[in-house]
């Protein structure tokens, strides 16, 4: 099979007899370019306009991006809002790892990243930003995590891509692009802040492992 590019994913597979974990490699191949840097920026601009339409009072308004890539999307939306509405919004970051429901079945624990919400979320209208909406479990965890910081007036959800296959009754308020995907596929976002490019690819497991 001809590969456009290969993504290497590491999975920890429990432990061997010597007590050290084993790492295997899974190859992913690119299937389709969902967004390039221009369409990604347009999608964020459209989401920003929709946020501005729905939220009039920016004195009690906050944006929170979910670790890792959602953080950068949230910062970009915040700066677009600041440009359009002459506000001074700072985006917070949220890591929902500790609230996930797969702690018991995950073989190794994911790294807990920084949560930094530099404002009091009580009575605020909060827009939660993530890159991909899939099963809804991450959003469920994020809602619980956010509630432990206070009681926001509303929480709205903005995602760059909605790939379907929901397992929980959760929907997004602002969607960049909606697609249907298969469970063996992965949507992979790259942002120039850490990946040196803006792109979103649909990828899929390599056959014949």
């Amino acid at each position, binding site marked *: 099979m001809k590969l456009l590019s290969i993504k290497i994913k590491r999975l920890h597979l429990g432990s061997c007899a010597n007590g050290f974990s084993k790492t295997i490699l899974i190859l992913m191949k690119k299937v389709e370019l969902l967004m390039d840097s221009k369409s990604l920026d347009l999608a964020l601009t459209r989401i920003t306009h929709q946020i501005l339409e729905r939220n009039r009072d920016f004195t009690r308004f906050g944006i929170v991006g979910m670790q890792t890539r959602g953080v950068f999307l949230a910062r970009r939306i915040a700066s677009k809002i600041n440009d359009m509405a002459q506000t001074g919004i700072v985006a917070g970051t949220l890591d929902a790892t500790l609230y996930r429901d797969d702690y018991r079945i995950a073989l190794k624990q994911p790294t807990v990243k*920084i949560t930094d919400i530099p404002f009091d979320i009580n009575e605020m209208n909060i827009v939660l930003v993530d890159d991909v909406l899939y099963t809804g479990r991450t959003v469920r965890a994020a809602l619980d995590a956010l509630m432990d910081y206070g009681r926001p007036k509303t929480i709205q959800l903005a995602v760059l891509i909605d790939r379907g296959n929901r397992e929980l009754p959760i929907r997004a308020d602002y969607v960049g692009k909606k697609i249907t995907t298969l469970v063996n596929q992965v949507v992979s976002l790259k942002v120039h802040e850490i990946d040196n490019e803006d792109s979103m690819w649909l990828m899929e497991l390599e056959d014949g492992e």
Partner: protein
Amino acid sequence: MGLHIQHLLGLEGVSKEDLTLILDTADSFYQVLERDIPVVPTLRGKTIVNLFYENSTRTRISFELAEKRLSASPLNFSVSTSSINKGESLRDTIQNIEAMKIDMVVVRHGSAGVPYFLTKCTDAVIVNAGDGLHEHPTQALLDMMTIRRKFGKLEGLKVAIIGDIFHSRVARSNAWGMTTMGMNVVLCGPPTLLPQHLDSLGVTITDNLDEALDGADVVMLLRIQLERQSSGVFPSIREYRDRYGIDIEKMAYLRPDVMIMHPGPVNRGIEMSSDVADGPNSVILKQVTNGVAVRMAALYLLGGGESV
């Protein structure tokens, strides 16, 4: 990515990556502890037995609090009210407790090697909370966390650990962990309390306090176990205080931003004078706060997932 170790028995042989992961995770848990609601639901439904065969205030409370902050169910086992007094063996005790479906055991025992022994008779994850003269890994981790939070790094810093090195599992765990992290460790104390074999760890050993303190970024004082004084390892408490105790006059020879640590409990007026213990350089209470975060990190990283 996850830890390579399955149990936390000691810091000997634990890789720099694992130590760094625990310290990074502990920094995240420190943020959780500062919130209005300092509890996360991560270990909900996990049962953790605190098996303490030796007296402890700080460590037991710190572990119990860490377990509660993670929403685990702690089960406290104290020797005085147990069947140990009826002669039940350690293996029988642990297998009986395990039969009640537990996930992790935090153990403190007067004999070195007990945590390792427990890994052989149970499937539960074992965390060493101090075993004999062997190791006390979570204390060393919280010490390193406290140092790293102030200096922003560990590598290249000089730490002087002063006191009863021979009987100190804290010193041993710190010697392993800190040398792995690239720190310069100097162990200092009266020659009778200074095992020479420790230089095989790559640490410096001296009975000369001035040499130990010279250029030190961190000074860690260990508790002199007063009950050992009668065994003649040093002539008198007073002589120990004069030669190895840190008071405000000796502070003048140290760099102004030196960090003063003590694993507690402090014998005020022996290892350090009260004005040093309560002074601006002392981080003794910060160590206690960080202890909860570091223990949460260790329990979180070791506790998840199915046993394989």
